[in-house]
């Protein structure tokens, strides 16, 4: 369905030297630098799969999505989707895909929402009867009825995102690209959108590629993830593989009045573990302890901490996705060095 081979994208970037003098210099004698945004990425996605595509900011996720949707031309490498090359057969290719960029909109800003769907109907040549059925279906899944006559600029972010997803699905695309579809949304709308994506994927066998910073998006939707960092592929596998490997990191946050918490607690000595497994950071009163929950169970950690010192406001958190990626990337580099 989707084949990506050795994809690479370079950008030229002009560098401005600092200060006023620098601005003058770069006005007449601009210096440029080559930046590799995507470096040799390969993966495959079979039909009907939801692929979670993750990585820290600036990792190159959006650049990959833009190449897959035919917006950017790769410097080298190849991507084939439905047997088509996005940059070569742009017009016929984009008929079969739907795209949502969470930070942009494809809706007509000044027109009532309904008009956008009317325009899209003609662009994608959707027949009248199919259009009505489809709109009824999308309305049911994404609940558009209450704001379909309002101008797009008056919609809330959650409404706009639902409307945008509906717009990308109007022509029943075979592949759906979602670039951060839940960015800045509240929990209820996030849930709503996840359910809609899941439902469309199950009922229509739509292949979905999804980028996000919210691990919960990935957990509810996709079985498989591809993780990239600094333009390179660092992980390709299932969620459970990722979790068993890297998802056991927990963070314990609390406030305390005790001075010298690190010495008072001395986790490493108490549990008989190395300093890698548990790290403690203090910032005034607040303390952050990061530990591997497969080595030290959360309950042990809590009871020990609470028994040892006086604690206010304690909480346990999953390590965020950036943290996992950071660990993963370090691991990747170490593996390569060993090999």
């Amino acid at each position: 369905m989707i084949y990506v081979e050795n994809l690479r994208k370079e950008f030229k970037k002009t560098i401005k030297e600092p200060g006023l003098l620098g601005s003058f210099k770069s006005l007449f004698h601009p210096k440029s630098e080559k930046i590799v945004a995507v470096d040799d990425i390969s993966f495959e996605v079979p039909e009907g799969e939801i692929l979670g595509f993750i990585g820290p900011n600036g990792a190159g996720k959006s650049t990959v999505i833009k190449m897959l949707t035919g917006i950017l031309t790769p410097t080298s490498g190849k991507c084939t989707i439905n047997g088509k090359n996005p940059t070569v057969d742009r017009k016929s290719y984009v008929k079969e895909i739907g795209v949502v960029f969470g930070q942009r909109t494809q809706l007509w800003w000044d027109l009532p929402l309904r008009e956008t769907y009317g325009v899209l109907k003609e662009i994608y040549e959707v027949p009248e009867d199919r259009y009505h059925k489809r709109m009824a279906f999308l309305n049911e899944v994404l609940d558009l009825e209450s704001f379909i006559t309002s101008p797009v600029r008056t919609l809330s972010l959650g409404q706009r995102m639902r409307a945008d997803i509906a717009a990308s699905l109007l022509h029943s695309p075979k592949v759906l690209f979602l670039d951060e579809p839940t960015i800045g949304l509240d929990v209820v709308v996030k849930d709503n959108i996840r359910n809609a994506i899941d439902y469309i994927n199950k009922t229509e066998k739509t292949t979905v590629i999804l980028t996000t910073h919210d691990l919960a998006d990935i957990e509810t939707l996709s079985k498989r993830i591809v993780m990239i960092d600094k333009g390179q592929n660092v992980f390709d596998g299932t969620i459970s593989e990722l979790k068993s490997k890297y998802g056991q990191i927990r963070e314990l946050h609390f406030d305390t009045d005790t001075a010298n918490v690190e010495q008072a607690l001395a986790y490493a000595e108490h549990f008989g573990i190395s300093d890698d497994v548990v790290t403690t950071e203090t910032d005034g009163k607040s303390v952050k302890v990061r530990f591997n929950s497969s080595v030290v169970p959360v309950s042990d950690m809590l009871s020990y901490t609470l028994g040892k010192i006086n604690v206010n406001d304690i909480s346990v958190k999953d390590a965020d996705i950036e943290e996992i990626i950071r660990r993963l990337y370090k691991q990747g580099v170490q593996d390569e060095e060993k090999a």
Partner: protein
Amino acid sequence: MKRKLKIYTPFINAGIQETATYRVNWIFYMLGNVLACFVSYFIWKAVYTSSGESSMNGFTMPQMVVYIFLMYLTSTMVSSDSAYLIGEEIRDGSIAMRLVKPVSFNGTFLFQEIGNKLMTICVLIIPLVVGVEIVRVVFTGSVQFNFISFLLYLISCTFAYLINFFFNICFGFIAFIIKYLWGVNLMKNCIVGFLSGAIIPLAFLPKPLEQVFLFLPFSSLNYTPVMIYMGMYSGTTLLYYICLQIFWVVAFWGMSKLFWRICVKHLSVQGG
């Protein structure tokens, strides 16, 4: 062809509705331009009065009045914002959304702009043409309106608009390289205004310069339609200028296609 037209008609509709959304802005924009016309009129009036001659370079004062107002109508009809729009879309990255649709990039801009202009044209054309004709009747004492000239004028305006549109598309593609067009665009508008005769009639220029300017594509934008309306061109001259317009339409259309192909490879979408 019919199929294609059906795809792009919603862009015309959307364009009309967009203009309608910002009615007040639109009204003030037109009022501002009408005021500029009157400023121009008083300047020329002063020039004619102080020179003491009734005709300068083949233009009498009444003809000059007609020229000024027709020039305003024509430049409004044939104006194109596509360079600016492309520049903006490249600057804020929203061009990405246009590229993921199965439509021609140039086509969407063209039809959206036609929609944007349609209302302006409908509102302006009748009062201005009637006004200009009244001025002519008052000064000459007889009805000068020639339906065939008017029809030819409309045809010439259509070609002029297409030249301007494709020229602006080509120009807008510079934004793919320099990323932000505002300053360059300002300079372009100034130069084009002069070359197209919007500021002073080309007949007022030194002869060799006039000949060069008449061949350049810019005189086809405003000067040719206005001259046709005023009945200054006829017979083979008329045919020559219409053919020149067609030539420039085709030339810029071809160039815009070529530029598009080159530029799309250089695209780097800004901002996320």
